[in-house]
């Protein structure tokens, strides 16, 4: 399986085409076929996980083929531990939303399944791409199916919401395209070679840029990713998109799409512009903390359950960003873990909101009350998911939140302390909503007829609940996968980070210091079957020199 990653990206798209051939009306067949198709990437991911070498922090399973050689762009894919974890999240959530579709999509069923599978392809494409142009293509393609999902299967204000979604994200990412092109043109300039274009991520590390150019490029990347995260104050598209999106759309939007922003910071912004990112880290940290508190406060007063969960995402993703800009091991590993946690617990929350929405066609908290008596199984599932979301120890959310705060506290005491208040506020809005929906007497007669969760609904939520427990009690396998990759990522910025922390009066953390000795390397066409001797610490080819495989592009 030397083309595992290509197959991973391709399977859902092929499945979508197959699905297109199924005659309208054969819904049972569509259901089964789409589920079967979505299990293939899951299986591939399991295989990849089994062969993944956790001791290495560079890209593995790399495939590279010339694509637009005259522009130095190639089809180049590869993964490290960070992308592997997010791939795993994607391939787990997709079958779940496909199962959930049968309950929540009542028209143009086939089109919805097709769009979901296409969305999976483009998300996986974004996660495996290690050529900037390729990444950009997938990044933009990703918008199309999501735009359609909101615009066609959405609620009453779907047109407004889908256009707002498109507008925010497109406006955010256009400057990034300009920055990518500029960066590719600058490649090799320092070495006296003019016109040696390259979009390969590995080639572009350490590209010589003037400080102003580096900052401008960083700003462009920042804008694209910050909209996606979304960071305060670029977040207002999210509540609208969530409220209008169908259940499955919300699950994927919150579960995976938002992570593309935080992933972008780790994969691209930090390694490509370490000085600029480190210089901006206090500002980003401050915005992240504002997002944590702001999102939590605004979530508190939402009358609509979905909007409440949407604003809680603003708060939770603030934690992730804070962890990233801490730029120490605990903060970044916590951030990566929290990306997964948020996918699991917020995904489950949206599914659960969908359960009562399908029965009552309202998401207003005031319409409910006393549901525990009517739907005990639902109430217990909701309870566990809520506890996971508010970071109760023993469940997944705690591990991420704790490590992020630990790292952030090292980075800056004030930011860490204010962020910790988000943990209190997070409990406040969740418990308050829970109380109003589940506790008290049944005040609305319409709720007396509600039935408890169906088996299909349980099938969508229980896997996520199981994950929440496993990830809270035994997080080690996940950290083993990400450890070397996070170290490599941090090593890109180790010099700048060390200078920052020294200026702040902190002793550099062990990893930032040790990270300086880890050389970044890039070996195209690298397959796991041929491990490089010496492991991650061994010095490899200098990254500034164009790798041998680059010759194909000329």
């Amino acid at each position: 399986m030397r083309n595992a990653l290509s197959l991973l990206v391709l399977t859902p798209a092929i499945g979508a085409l197959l699905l297109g051939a199924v005659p309208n009306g054969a819904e049972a067949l569509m259901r089964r076929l789409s589920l079967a198709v979505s299990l293939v990437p899951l299986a591939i991911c399991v295989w990849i996980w089994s062969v993944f070498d956790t001791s290495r922090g560079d890209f593995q399973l790399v495939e590279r083929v010339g694509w637009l050689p005259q522009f130095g762009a190639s089809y180049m894919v590869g993964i490290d531990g960070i992308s592997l974890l997010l791939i795993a999240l994607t391939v787990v959530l997709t079958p779940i939303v496909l199962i959930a579709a049968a309950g929540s999509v009542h028209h143009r069923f086939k089109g919805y399944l097709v769009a979901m599978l296409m969305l999976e392809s483009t998300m996986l494409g974004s996660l495996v791409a290690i050529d900037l142009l390729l990444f950009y293509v997938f990044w933009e393609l990703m918008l199309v199916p999501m735009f359609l999902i909101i615009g066609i299967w959405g609620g009453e204000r779907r047109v407004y919401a889908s256009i707002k979604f498109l507008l925010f994200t497109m406006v955010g990412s256009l400057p990034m395209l300009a920055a990518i092109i500029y960066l590719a043109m600058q490649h090799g300039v320092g070495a006296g070679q003019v016109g040696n274009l390259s979009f390969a991520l590995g080639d572009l590390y350490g590209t010589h840029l003037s400080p102003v150019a580096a900052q401008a490029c960083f700003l462009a990347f920042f804008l694209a990713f910050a909209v996606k995260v979304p960071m305060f104050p670029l977040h207002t598209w999210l509540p609208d998109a969530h409220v209008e999106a169908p259940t499955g759309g919300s699950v994927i939007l919150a579960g995976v799409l938002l992570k593309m922003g935080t992933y972008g910071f780790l994969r691209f912004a930090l390694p490509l512009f370490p000085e600029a990112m480190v210089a901006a880290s206090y500002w980003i940290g401050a915005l992240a903390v504002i997002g944590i508190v702001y999102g939590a406060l605004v979530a508190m007063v939402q009358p609509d359950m979905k909007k409440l969960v949407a604003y809680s995402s603003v708060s939770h993703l603030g934690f992730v960003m804070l962890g990233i800009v801490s730029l120490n091991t605990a903060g970044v590993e916590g951030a990566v873990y929290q990306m997964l946690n948020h996918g699991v617990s917020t995904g489950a929350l949206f599914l659960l909101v969908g359960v009562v929405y399908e029965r009552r066609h309202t998401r207003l908290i005031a319409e409910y009350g006393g549901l525990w008596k009517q739907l005990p199984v639902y109430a217990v599932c909701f309870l566990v998911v809520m506890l996971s979301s508010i970071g109760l120890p023993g469940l997944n959310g705690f591990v991420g939140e704790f490590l992020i705060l630990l790292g952030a506290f090292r980075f800056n005491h004030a930011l860490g302390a204010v962020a910790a208040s988000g943990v209190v506020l997070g409990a406040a809005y969740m418990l308050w909503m829970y109380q109003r929906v589940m506790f008290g007497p049944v005040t609305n007669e319409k709720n007396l007829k509600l039935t408890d969760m169906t088996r299909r609904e349980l099938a969508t939520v229980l896997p996520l609940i199981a994950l929440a427990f496993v990830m809270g009690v035994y997080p080690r396998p996940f950290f083993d996968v990400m450890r070397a990759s996070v170290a490599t990522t941090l090593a890109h910025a180790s010099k700048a980070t060390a200078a920052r922390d020294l200026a702040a009066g902190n002793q550099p953390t062990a990893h930032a210091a040790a990270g300086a000795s880890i050389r970044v390397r890039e070996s195209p066409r690298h397959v796991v079957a041929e491990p490089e001797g010496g492991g991650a610490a061994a010095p490899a080819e200098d990254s500034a020199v164009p790798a041998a495989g680059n010759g194909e592009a000329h």
Partner: protein
Amino acid sequence: MHAAATEVTASLPIAVSYLRYIPLAPLVGVLFHVALGYRLGRRAVGLVACAAVAVSFALAAKAFLTVLGSAAGTVVTDNVYQWLSSGEFTANVTFSVDALSSVMIMVVTGVGFLIHLYSIGYMAHEEDYARFFAYLNLFTAAMLVLVLADNLPLMFVGWEGVGLCSYLLIGFWYTDPEKASAGKKAFLVNRIGDAGFVLGAFTIFWALVDLGQGSLTFATINARAAELPAWASLAGALLLFVGATGKSAQIPLYVWLPDAMAGPTPVSALIHAATMVTAGVYMVARLHGLFEAAPAALQVVGIVGAATALLAATIGIAQTDIKKVLAYSTVSQLGYMFLALGVGAYGAGIFHVMTHAFFKALLFLGAGSVIHGLHDEQDIRRMGGVAQKMPITHATFALGVLAIAGVPGLSGFFSKDEILASAYAGGHFGLWICGVLGASITAFYMTRLYVLTFRGKFRGDHHKWDHAHESPIQMTLPLMVLAALAVVGGYVGVPEVLGGNNAFAEYLAPSVGHHQLGLAAGTELMLMGISVAAALTGIGLAWVMYSKGPDADLILKNKLGGLYQQMREAYNIDAVYDALVVQPLMRASDALWHSVDVRVIDGVANGTAAAVNSAGEGWRRWSTGNVQHYMLTVLVGVAALILALTLSSLIGVAG
């Protein structure tokens, strides 16, 4: 300022692998109740719940006897697995039992078992029987993790776990919105404390990293606390103490505990009196090395404890709900424990944790028995003469009252007296006076409670009186056992001046250090005399006043004027917090949403959107057309692109 000798005997570890089953047994109980409880019925649920705790008790006893029978400083440890590891930070699931934690696990499993047993009777008519015992077992498991943990992160698992169970149990009768609110309040106030706990742990962790030993095990923290920079030990200790004020209901975070009485009475006994609320005391004692290294923090602990003891006692005088009196009494008694810690008398604080667990669990269960017997009557103004109908409850309750009042010979006397003597010996006269005053008030309000409930004539509805009955054996048996413990429990810590050898302090010394009073025998006896006199004055005064019935409250009301009303309304602290914190926060949230989100940010965005209105027009036009066609076209295009991209790789490799 410390009379405490800080040297702690070097620990002698014994590795075992059975400690993990102490919390695991009740956890298995939880799984049983959830999976099978509703199918197999009440008998099975009650039996499994009690059996699970009995297993924990047996294993706890084994560990306790091992520590007791081995050389001083023996620690039994069970290293289960590495839980978290990131950068410099690691946290293991490692349980350990030393002298200090052995006392705690015995109290938790012992008193816990009795309360499980009692609950079988008390909750007999409850529809959601399995849910109740699932929560109760889960609580026991979490509490055991808390006291068995050998490091702060693992302790935090139990710490938040007991908070969760407290939330669930206070709101057990969730259809009553007031009870559900009380549960939420408990969780949130505790979360404020928990944020302090976590930040305190971070402070210490990074300071230890700078010393080259990033670890949050209690052993490391205590051993290296003296080397920490002064700001780090002070900030760390104070932040952790914020956590303690939440869990152990001290000023300023005590406000949740009185409301917590909304839960079933056995829950009040187990969680909100005997075990969970002592977690803060345990944590400070566990980290005594850190607190010793920050004398200012220790001083804060003592002052907060004394102030809470006094404040809550004054509120207790004026309450009319039997459980509210006991709730404020608990807050007050916890204050005594912190007072002890604050003057460096850790052993005395833990001694009081234990005796208090006996007599307060007894008092709550007795109150529950009365409430049960009087068909949910809780207002002591409508009680009276209950002794005739409920002789066992009456006798055991009376012993509890005498114990908490500090009557010589009963358990509360020994522990409270050791605390007061330590405060005096350490030169903390202010704290000592607060303590003596509080002891007198305690004796007063407890006697008031006893007299109004059990003596005189019944003042309530005669139907209730006619149906009043003594509780069944599952309920009275725990009462009798606890009464016995409340009487004799203090004899493990008889001071030398009374001819004892204070075996309890001796036993705890390897964990928390020796604490020498250094007082002349005459002084010690004099102090004892003063506190006994204070207690007897309180008892006598209340006896005389309240033998005439609840109207005696008027005497106090006339004497104290507006202050009395304040005491009855608990100084309206809740209203103050509501006005200062909750309401402003809600208003700010609303304002942020409507002004910042909707007006400012979306205003800008919508302005932009208007500029590209034509795009929107276009969308609306074709969205009315054959969307499916259009969509398929787009998606086929996307698919073709992906195909083109990935296939080139597949072909390229194949070729």
